[in-house]
Each structure stands twice: as structure tokens, then as C-alpha cells.
């Protein structure tokens, strides 16, 4: 299987994640979409790692997984904090700051 295919798939996943960030309003779902974007990056790294026969990319992906997990934890923490404060869980309602 050519490496190009993996890369195109990763580009597709990246795009889908980006679309999700743009069209969805629920912050939890947006966090999921961010996961998609990061996993697209991870897939690209692994593809290149395979292509190069170099395992640096694999370690990189492991780090990316950790980072993604941390991002999720903080993001969900913020969501919970907002929920506790009875703020609407809708990014379109977060318009306190603008202009």
C-alpha cells in the first residue's frame, strides 16, 4: 500500500475534524473533533515513519497521544466548570468577549 494513500486519508481526517470544529456548537463535540485533527497528524507521522524506516515518528505519535489526552482533560474540565456555573454549553453563546 503506497504511503500516499495513508497521507491522503490523514488529510481527509484533518479536514473532517476542522469541519467539525467549524460547524458544531457543543464544546464536547468540538473537543472530539480536535481529537480527530490530532489523530490525523499522528497518522501522517506514522506513515512517514514507515516510509523512512525511522521510528522517531512513532515516539512522536506517543507524545501526541499524551498531549491529546491532556488537552481533553483540561477541555472537559472547563466544560464541567461552565456547566457548574450554569452557563450554556454552546460556543455560539460564548459571545461575552468580542469587538
Amino acid at each position, binding site marked *: *500500500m503506497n*504511503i*500516499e*494513500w495513508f497521507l491522503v486519508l490523514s488529510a*481527509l481526517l484533518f479536514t473532517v475534524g476542522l469541519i467539525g470544529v467549524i460547524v458544531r456548537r457543543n464544546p464536547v463535540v468540538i473537543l472530539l473533533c480536535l481529537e480527530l485533527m490530532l489523530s490525523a497528524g499522528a497518522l501522517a507521522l506514522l506513515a512517514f515513519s514507515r516510509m523512512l524506516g525511522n521510528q522517531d515518528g512513532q515516539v512522536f*505519535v*506517543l*507524545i501526541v497521544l499524551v498531549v491529546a489526552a491532556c488537552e481533553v*482533560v483540561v477541555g*472537559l474540565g472547563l466544560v464541567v466548570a461552565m456547566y457548574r456555573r450554569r452557563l450554556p454549553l454552546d460556543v455560539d453563546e460564548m459571545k461575552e468577549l468580542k469587538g
Partner: protein
Amino acid sequence: MEQIAFFCGAIGALGGAIAVVALKNPFYSVLALVIHLVFLAGIFLLLMAQFLAAALIVVYAGAVMVLYVFVAAYVGGIEEPRWDSSPELKLIGPIAAIALFVAISIAIVGSGLSALSTTGPDDIPAGFGTPEAVGHLMMEDFLIAFEAASILLLLAAVAAIVLAGRRREDPNKLPKGGESS
């Protein structure tokens, strides 16, 4: 055989991803992401990343997704309203994103890097992608990144406690309705 595996994996991963974006209920979106991750792990295997495939399933699809499920359950499955404050974003956003996909694809396909149209070298070292190999690299070449990642996990835990933990202060100390709007 490999092609079939790849396309199955690709369709599954992509389908899961699209389902994440498309499903109205965040609870289902989380489940869709789990599906996506499972198929993605399969693709990882095709790329000879056994350890990462396992890590993705165990840590990610397992642990992190549980966190999602908990939060989704805690805040409730809020269905997004049909009404949208800026419908034009729903139109131009995806169009631009698809344009970006096309551009990146052109960059990949048009690249002069000849190795891209191969399946990668055949003479890869033995044990490529095994826990042992990755672990060695991590402890030898990328020690700092590894340590920093562990500190990051610690900080994420602290952050979660700060943001979502129950306040220990006397609630009376804080004015009620201290909301700015």
C-alpha cells in the same frame, strides 16, 4: 490483502470521523470516535506501529473515552438546536476545508519525494514499532520529551482538579449570583 485491509480501515476511520461531526447527540459522537479510533488502530498496524495501535486502543479508546462518556453523561446529552446563529459558516467553512484538503492532497501527490509512492523500505530493522524499540528510543533519544510529557500529565491532573473539583472554600464567602450577566 493489504489494500483491502487499508480500505476497510480507511472507510471505518473516516466513517467514524464523519459520524462524530454529523451525529446530533454528543453521546453518540463519543461512541463514533471510539469506532474511529478502533479502525485507526488497525491502520496503525498496517504501518507497523504495533505498540501505538495497542496504546491507542487501551489508553485512548479505553480510558480517555470513558472520561468523555462521563462528562457527556454529566452535562447531559444536549441536542444542538436546529437554529443556527450564522448559517453561512456552515456553508463556507466546509467548502474552504475541502479546498484545504484538495490543496494538501496536491502537495502530497505532487511531491517529488519518490518514497511516497512506495510502501516503504523492506529492510526495516527487526522489531520496528514494538514496545521495546519505541521504549528504547524514548529513553535514549527522546528522554526530555518523555519527561516533559509526564509533567504535562501531572499538570493536566492539577488543572482538572482546579477547574472541575469541588471548591473547598466556604460557599458563603463567595457572593451568590456572582455572575456578570
